[in-house]
């Protein structure tokens, strides 16, 4: 190996001379011990794709990846590269085309990290394994890509799990294949190394390589992958861009988990609700929620919010409303008004003051008449002032608009202005939780006990 090289990373690998071949699986089924692991899966991985495979445990992600790698013989169907079935290629030829990072790897013999990474050059070597300069460079680059140059001469048997994982990825990078298949490559890795791995993959993809990665972390997939494949019980549940795929409906369907989806850096960001609710409670105190309701329309939301540790304020409720009763019983701040009368300017002003203190305003699906139409205007001003406004859109506004369409116009204006629509109490609360969680994360940043 040449020593005293001036710049360690001087040479980037040349982009593969030829575009990666298309990797294609047709009607792939895998049945083992009478269990159907994959059921008629069709996948086409175009050259240069960055495909993320997602799915619950046991949905067949690893099985699919192993089939694509030619490591597992499907029961029916076939996998082809460049239109020729994998079985028609010999092992070494496949290993020059497809690099695989398996989930685990054991090596109880005291090879150094560098030697282990150099084993990735096997398919390119002469028969007795002599390394050429090109091989040396590939090994050096792979070590640098995974930031394990410092470990190069340590015995691989003495590494931590995360370090071994990076060695395994480096070994596959040294293989320099146009197609990379990775099975949960982020396992055992700290967050910084997770990002590092995803960025390396991203760069290799930008250089023209095909990357297929099984990821557990939906958001990691959403951030980096251009295409997602959702597997569920061995079948393709959905396939498409992260934007199209990562919706609460699809994720509820596939993962049986309620989530909220925000957008972050132009990509969807998914927060699972069942996990976040408890943690949201911790942040609840920090998020002031105001519930605009009346006529009992907000009782569900109110109880759920209080249950989660929020102390929402309410307005404007009539003293006869069940909303009022509930709020009083919970000791919450309430703006109330006498029943059956239009809101007085004083009441509206008082309400507006309370709303201005809130970070988040939830508009319960109340029936609008002339008397409480001002509630919508208050919400609009809160939105303009920068609060998050959540509008319950069911039942449809038309069915509870007694103002001849003015309420509908105002609600539409709210939604157009950036208010978040929520079909039901549960999803409204979910969104509130998402906001609280964000706030909790923002305020506990750097707090080791966070």
């Amino acid at each position, binding site marked *: *190996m040449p*020593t005293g090289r001036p710049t360690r990373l001087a040479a980037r690998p040349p982009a593969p001379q030829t575009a990666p071949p298309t990797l294609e699986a047709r009607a792939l089924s895998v049945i083992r011990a009478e269990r159907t692991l994959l059921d008629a899966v069709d996948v086409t991985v175009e050259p240069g794709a960055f495909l993320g495979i997602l799915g619950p445990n046991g949905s067949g992600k690893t099985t699919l990846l192993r089939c694509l*790698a030619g*490591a597992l013989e499907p029961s029916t169907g076939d996998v082809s590269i460049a239109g020729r079935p994998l079985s028609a290629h*010999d*092992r*070494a*030829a*496949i*290993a*020059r085309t497809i*690099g*695989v990072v*398996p989930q685990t*790897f*054991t*090596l*109880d*013999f*005291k*090879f*150094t990290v*560098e*030697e*282990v990474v150099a*084993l*990735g050059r*096997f*398919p390119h*070597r002469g*028969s*007795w*394994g002599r390394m050429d300069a090109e091989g040396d460079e590939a090994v050096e680059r792979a070590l640098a890509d995974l930031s394990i140059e410092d470990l*190069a*001469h340590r*015995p691989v*048997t*003495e590494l931590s799990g995360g370090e071994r994982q990076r060695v395994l990825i480096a*070994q596959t990078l040294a*293989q320099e294949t146009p197609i990379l298949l990775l099975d949960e490559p982020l396992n055992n890795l700290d967050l910084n190394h997770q990002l590092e791995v995803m960025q390396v993959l991203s760069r290799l993809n930008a250089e023209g390589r095909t990357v297929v990665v099984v990821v557990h972390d939906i958001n990691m997939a959403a951030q980096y992958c251009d295409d997602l494949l959702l597997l569920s019980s061995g079948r393709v549940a959905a396939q498409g861009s992260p934007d199209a795929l990562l919706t609460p409906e699809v994720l509820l369907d596939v993962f049986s988990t309620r989530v909220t989806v925000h957008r972050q850096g132009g990509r969807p960001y998914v927060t699972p609700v069942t996990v976040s609710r408890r943690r949201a409670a911790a942040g609840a105190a920090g998020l002031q929620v105001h519930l605009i309701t009346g006529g009992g329309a907000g009782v569900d939301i109110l109880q759920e919010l209080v249950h989660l540790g929020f102390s929402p304020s309410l307005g404007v409720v009539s003293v006869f409303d069940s909303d009022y009763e509930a709020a009083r019983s919970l000791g919450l701040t309430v703006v109330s008004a006498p029943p059956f009368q239009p809101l007085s300017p004083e009441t509206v002003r008082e309400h507006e003051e309370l709303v201005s203190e809130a970070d988040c305003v939830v508009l319960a699906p109340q029936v609008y008449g002339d008397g409480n139409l001002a509630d919508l205007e208050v919400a609009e001003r809160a939105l303009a002032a920068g609060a998050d406004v959540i509008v319950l859109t069911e039942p449809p506004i038309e069915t509870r608009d007694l103002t001849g369409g003015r309420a509908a116009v105002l609600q539409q204006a709210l939604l157009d202005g950036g208010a978040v629509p929520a079909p039901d109490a549960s999803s409204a609360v979910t969104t509130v939780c998402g906001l609280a969680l964000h706030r909790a994360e923002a305020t506990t940043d750097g707090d080791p006990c966070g």
Partner: protein
Amino acid sequence: MNPRRARRRRYRLLMAVLAAALLGALLLAAVVGAAGLTPAQVGRATLGLLSPGSVDPDSYPSWAPRLLRDLRLPRIVMALVAGIALATAGATFQGVFRNPLAEPYLLGVSAGAAVGATVAIIWRPFGALGIFGLPALAFLGAVLAATLVYRLATFAGETSSSSLLLSGVAVGSTFTAVLSLLMVATQYDLRTVIIWLMGGLTTASWTKVAVASPLVAAGFIIMLAYAPRLNLMLMGESRAEELGVDAHSTRRTLMIVASLTTASAVAFTGLIGFVGLMVPHMVRLLIGPDHRYLLPASALFGALFLLLADTLARTILSPAEIPVGIITAFVGGPFFLYLLRKRRGV
């Protein structure tokens, strides 16, 4: 990248040291012995053998050249060949099983070879094959034992130490029982067979050397050719396949070849244990596990080790001799226990 160069340098240094030590051991082995020849007599007799007339024939006993030519030298060469065979077979079995405790003797492969060889000795039809019948049947027995152990000990490509050792013990004992049965049933000269079983080089001859050496050499060359693939096999068969190795055929080839070299040694020297365990282990400690270097160094070290052990075996109770297998077991047994205790990262 100095550490890598350092490893290569250490490899070359080790090979040089082993070669020098081997030379010394050769001289020592040629000189010492029950006959009581002096080094000077041995030297002169050797010269007399090489070019008659160059030395005064009266300067050494008249039987000395024949003793050297027909007894000592073939025995020395046989020790070298058997040492190479057992050490490289050990290194290869360890790689294939991904377990540093694998060894022809402990795996029962040697016992399998011994049964084959015994059949060849006592079963008349094989007399027709002459001296080749011995390694041929020993080879069949060894392959049978290796296959059995692999089948018994390996689940989904993984071999745990305990299942490996238990399978080895089970297969070994079964073959040993067959061996005993054969001996008793045919009333063959038990003492000869028992001495042979304990591992001995006493009956070495040039004919045996001539049959064993090409087999061991061929086996060693094939092992060496497979060394890079064997390195990848250490990560498990599925990982090896992902990196372009045909794992099944590699495993099969290497098991057959290691069985062949084992059988070549066992057929002519009986059961000599632990060489294949100790030698590769010590070499790995010095130069690492890369089979491209491990195999040649193990071959040299194995030759040196067995030659020294045999020299000790024929001098320690001189004029009586003890089977060399007893010496290797004396050293190897405790070594094995030590390895068993500190199993990790070899």
